Structure formats: structure tokens, C-alpha cells
């Protein structure tokens, strides 16, 4: 099933053309990878799906219905959860408060926070992803980058997201931690979520991706399914094929 479909979407920031004519599909139980260099427009693309920015042209369909998202809340209510690259968590707040932020369960006449439930659930949900936190009260900023990404993924899965968007979850991570995060991305997919994985690492993309969208300077330069493209082709397309060839010549020593 197509959960999200972008068709010919464009976005301008004032006079900056950040996106032009980009199309992409997100299917349930599949991972759609968006690849591109820094400044290619990857974050802009997902901010449109996440409700942070409105698109200027093209269409956004959610479960077959044309939509304009006006706020992140609307996106969340439609089952789209996003882990942003630059604004994922509130570092000084405890893990359990971050886990439920924006969707806090309440109890009793005075509608107080259900703190016991929140603590217990956070611990249990993270344990299911293989993270055994010694203390859910510790500020989330004290977790490693990989653990933080996993908390965010666990959170989206717990709140019943249908679409999970991850903006460069492995960008700042080492090899081992990247592996852990990719495992959880695959786990989310196996649970039937449609995943959008943003990365500039073709190796990571090819490990888990079902379809690949390549962006360069705001335009779409390629869109492939997994059986259409090999890792080498993906890598060279991503690096800009001929650009890489000329770079090789420049760097060759005589």
C-alpha cells in the first residue's frame, strides 16, 4: 500500500530553490532511501512530509488523499513520525519525559501525568529494542547518539506511527552504532511501517533500502527500486558519476 506519495514537489526559501519537481513513494513494510550530498534538499523534502514546511508546488498524497500539512501535529495525527537530524530531543530532560513528549498520558481527576506508567513503559519499550537503560531518569543528552536515535525510533513505533522518517540517523555514528541503528530501522520495517531513510551514505542505504531517490542541488537525479541498481551504481550516481571520474584524474599522481 502506498502510504505517502510526493509528485513533482517543489519548495523555495525566499529566492533559494531548495527542491524542484521531486517525486517519491513510501510503501508499508518498505524502506525508501533519500540520498544526496550536503545541501541537496534532503531535510527540506522530509520537513514537507513532517508538516514543518508547506510545499509550494506539486502534490502530497497521504493514503491516497491529497493533503497540505499545516503543522507537525497534523502529520503526527496522520501517523507520520519524524526523527529530525537537528531537533530530535530535549537534551536536559529525562529519557522518559522525552519519550512521551507531546503525547503525555494522564490519569486521575486532576489529570496529572501518569508518571509510573511513563517510566515503566519507557524502560520496557527500550528493552524491547535491546537497550537496557540503567536509569530512565537520566537526561537524554547523556545517551550516546545511537541510543538517542533508538529511543526516537522506539517512540515512533510505540505511538503507532505508520510512516517513520529518519533524517541522517547514522551521520554522526561509528560503524558499530550505525549497524545497531540500521537494525532497528529494519525492525520497524518488519513491523509494517513505511520508512523514509535519509542518508548520504550509499552503503547504509543499499543495506536496507527497497527504493532509492537521489537528489542533487534540489532536483531528482534518479529514482530506482532495489532490483534496478547495484551498490556500485548507486555509489557512483550519488557521487555524481562523471564528477567522480574527473576528481580521480585530478588526484592521480603523475
Amino acid at each position, binding site marked *: 500500500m502506498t502510504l505517502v506519495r510526493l509528485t513533482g514537489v517543489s519548495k523555495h526559501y525566499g529566492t533559494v530553490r531548495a527542491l524542484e519537481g521531486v517525486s517519491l513513494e513510501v510503501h508499508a513494510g518498505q524502506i525508501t532511501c533519500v540520498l544526496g550530498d550536503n545541501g541537496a534538499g534532503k531535510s527540506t523534502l522530509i520537513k514537507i512530509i513532517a508538516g514543518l514546511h508547506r510545499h509550494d508546488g506539486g502534490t502530497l498524497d497521504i493514503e491516497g488523499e491529497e493533503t497540505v500539512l499545516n503543522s507537525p501535529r497534523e502529520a503526527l495525527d496522520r501517523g507520520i513520525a519524524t526523527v529530525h537530524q537537528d531537533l530530535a*530531543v530535549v537534551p*536536559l530532560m529525562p529519557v522518559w519525559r522525552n519519550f512521551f513528549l507531546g503525547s503525555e498520558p494522564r490519569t486521575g481527576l486532576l489529570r496529572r*501525568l501518569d508518571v509510573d506508567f511513563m*517510566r515503566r513503559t519507557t524502560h520496557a519499550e527500550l528493552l524491547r529494542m535491546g537497550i537496557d537503560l*540503567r536509569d530512565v*531518569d537520566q537526561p537524554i543528552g547523556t545517551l550516546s547518539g545511537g541510543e538517542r536515535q533508538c529511543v526516537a525510533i522506539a517512540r515512533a513505533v510505540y505511538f503507532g506511527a505508520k510512516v517513520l522518517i529518519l533524517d541522517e540517523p547514522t551521520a554522526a555514528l561509528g560503524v558499530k552504532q550505525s549497524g545497531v541503528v540500521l537494525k532497528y530501522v529494519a525492525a520497524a520495517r518488519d513491523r509494517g511501517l513505511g520508512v523514509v531513510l535519509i542518508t548520504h551514505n550509499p552503503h547504509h542505504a543499499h543495506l536496507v533500502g527497497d527504493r532509492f531517490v537521489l537528489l542533487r542541488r534540489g532536483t531528482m537525479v534518479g529514482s530506482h527500486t532495489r532490483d534496478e541498481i547495484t551498490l556500485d551504481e548507486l555509489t557512483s550516481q550519488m557521487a555524481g558519476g562523471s564528477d567522480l571520474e574527473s576528481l580521480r584524474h585530478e588526484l592521480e599522481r603523475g
Partner: protein
Amino acid sequence: MSATLDKTHDERILRTSPLRRLLSRPEFGSVVGALAVFLFFAVAADGFLRASSLGTVLYASSTIGIMAVPVALLMIGGEFDLSAGVLVTSSALVSSMFSYQMTADTWVGVGVSLLVTLAVGAANGFVLTRTRLPSFIVTLGTFLMLTGMNLGLTKLIDGTVSTKTIADMEGFPSAHAVFASTLTVGGVDFKITIIWWLALVAIASWILLRTRAGNWIFAVGGNQDAARAVGVPVTRTKIGLYMGVAFGAWISGQHLLFSYDAVQSGEGVGNELIYIIAAVIGGCLITGGHGSAVGSAVGALLFGMTSKGIVFAEWNPDWFKFFLGAMLLLATLLNTWVRKRAEAAA
């Protein structure tokens, strides 16, 4: 709770000791400071330990504390309010002048004042979230405008810089009882503001730690964009925080009015910094996202003990500002150091 967690946890649990928990509380530094100041004046100032002094010190603390509580919440939410000091005076002036000019019941003035004061708070929050200017600029603007209006309107309406007495009006005794009365417990006089103060601390603590709004306050102060992205209503939270400060200003303003029955329109300037200092001494992070209501109360208590302790010690009160500055620096250093250690080891 902890019992069930302990079972599922492994040996690493040992690393978060109760001591570390205590150290990472925002108010830890201020409590140490308060103990030190208490001991200091207990030794240095005759009469500081007398029972009657307790009432005096707590009264001084409460007049600051009532405002330090909402100012602390606002600061945890990542903003300042430089208009808080003069807003107290504005609130008293509106109450007094409305009652006097309309020759109504003092309670009508009190009610109108509440509405007007809350509206100013809401306006602060609205302009801030709409324009996205720093709160320093927005509330500095409000501060200047209110300072001018307090004096200008009072002179225009009453002809002098202070309002006419409303002591002979209907409702004055009951309003005085609510906002400015004295309770005697065990031979010691306690002002009712102490009760207002403690109630505000309790309510604010509950909101911060046990409600959804509290979670939102920490979040908008700690990382506004992250909060917005997960669906926290940032604008509503910030406007609410400014209205909280306005509510505190209303209580303080009514106390000012009903304890003296007339108001000096030039008062209040500079107090906004004292509220902020109390909140910072109490462990509020100036950049937002961290702090507590109890801490602001300890900060206010430090303020009260120092201002009265200097009097009891019969020193020149000019030294008060010196002490305040030194305490601010020491408490902030201590807070920063403690937090760093607690976080590094967490």
C-alpha cells in the same frame, strides 16, 4: 516503582547513587548557600535567631518569592520578563484607581486589575511568539512603556505621583485580610504573603513535575524546535508562562496596595532583576530548560535572610547589593559545577 526497576536492572544501577540524585537537583546549590548564609548571620547578627526575626525574614522573602516562582517557570521555559517589576506597580495602580474613580467596591478594582494584568502578560507572550524577537527586547519595551504609563496616568488622574487612599472604601477590610493581614502563631507575627508564597511554590512544583503543561515548559525551554516537532503547543505554553508572571504581579500588587492603602507610581523599577536573581540562585538555567520552583523559593529566602540579616547585624545596608552580587556569582558557579559533574557521571 524503583523496586521493580531494580530487579530488571543490572549492576550498573550502582552508578546512579542517591547522592548523585541529590547533587543533580537544580536547587542543591542554593540550599547549601542558604545554610551557609543562615549560619553566618546566626553567628554574626544578634537577634537573627530570635523567633520574631523569623516572621520578618520570611516576610521579606515572600515579597520576592511570590514573583520569583512564576519568573522561574518562565525562565525554565526559556524566556525573561523585564516588565515583571513595574507590572506589580501597574497592577496596584489599576486596582486603586479603578476603585477610587468609579467609587466602587475595592473588590471590583481587584477584579479589574486581575484582568488588566493578565492581559499585559498575554500581550507580552503574544508579541514575543508573533515577532520572534528575543524576550529581552520585547519585555524591555513593555518595561519602559509601563514605567511611563504608571507615572503619566497617575499624574494625569490624581495630579500627584501617588494614588489617593482607598482605606475608607467598601470591601477594604476584607481585601486587606486576604492580601495584607498578619497572622500570629505562637506569639510570632507572620504576614499572609508567606502563605500565598508557599501555596504558589506548591502549585508551581506540581505543575512542573506532574502535569503535561510542566513537561511542555521544560521542553520549550530546553529545545523549542524539538518540542514543536513532536506537537507541543509552543505559543500557548509561552503565553501561559507570561500570564503566570502577570498573576504573581497581581497578587504582589494587591499586597502593595492593601498594606499601605495608597500606591507610589514610581515603584517597582529594578525588582525584575531581583526576581531573576532569586530564580538563578535557585538553580534556573539562564538559557532555559532546567530549574525548579522550590529553588526559586530558596533563592528568595537567601535574599530575605541577607537583607534582614544585615539590618540585625547593624551594618550599613549598602552592603546588601554587594552580598547579593557575590551570592549570585557563587551560586551560579556552584550550580554549573554540580550539574556538570552530575551529567558527566550519569
